[in-house]
């Protein structure tokens, strides 16, 4: 069974600084998809970034980028120039196919301080 592990229950970063959230996963599949979702206090699930496993290039979306290490089964999220609005729960998720279910990690609560 696929599992997703987020080992950092809470992280804190100062405004304008950079923070990295960790995620590891376990799978026997060779092709799959990885996602980072942001969940603010409203509890809406907002897609931050996604990575297709067959792509070697790390995904980037503005201030958000990932470090995808396929051999190590690691998928970390880097947030640059952190803003107060980045404060939220962040969930890492895995999906073995374009229509398959998502398996989520337990989340990392990110605090952004002044």
């Amino acid at each position, binding site marked *: 069974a696929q599992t997703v592990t987020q080992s950092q229950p809470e992280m804190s970063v100062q405004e304008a600084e950079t923070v990295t959230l960790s995620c590891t996963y376990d799978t026997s599949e060779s092709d799959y998809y990885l996602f980072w979702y942001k969940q603010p206090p*409203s*509890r809406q699930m907002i*897609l931050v970034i996604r990575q297709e496993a067959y792509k070697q290039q790390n995904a980037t979306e503005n201030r958000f980028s990932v470090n995808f290490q396929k051999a190590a089964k690691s998928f970390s999220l880097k947030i640059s120039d952190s803003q107060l609005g980045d404060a939220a729960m962040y969930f890492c998720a895995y999906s073995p196919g*374009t*229509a398959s279910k*998502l398996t989520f990690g337990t989340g990392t609560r990110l605090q952004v301080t002044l």
Partner: protein
Amino acid sequence: EPEVTQTPSHQVTQMGQEVILRCVPISNHLYFYWYRQILGQKVEFLVSFYNNEISEKSEIFDDQFSVERPDGSNFTLKIRSTKLEDSAMYFCVSRYGNVLLVNTEAFFGQGTRLTVV
């Protein structure tokens, strides 16, 4: 931008009552899902639905739960006899599911907060 719409946003029900949570997925999507999130915990998969039938379900999705898409647009989750432990946020999700499509995003609805008292 297309969106998944869930109603109601918040439902309070008495233990033992039946509830129906409703979702309108994105119109050209083919795969539909329900997930739940107990407060302070991770998001858990309940069931996936494709071609008018369940394609996969989790251990959580027991005989008290059912899903249907009666009119080709609304996608509903029914809980027949609610328990206190069913209190959670329930998310409806839709995906297009075409491997040729670059965008493999799972579109989440805004959630229905179910409170069982």
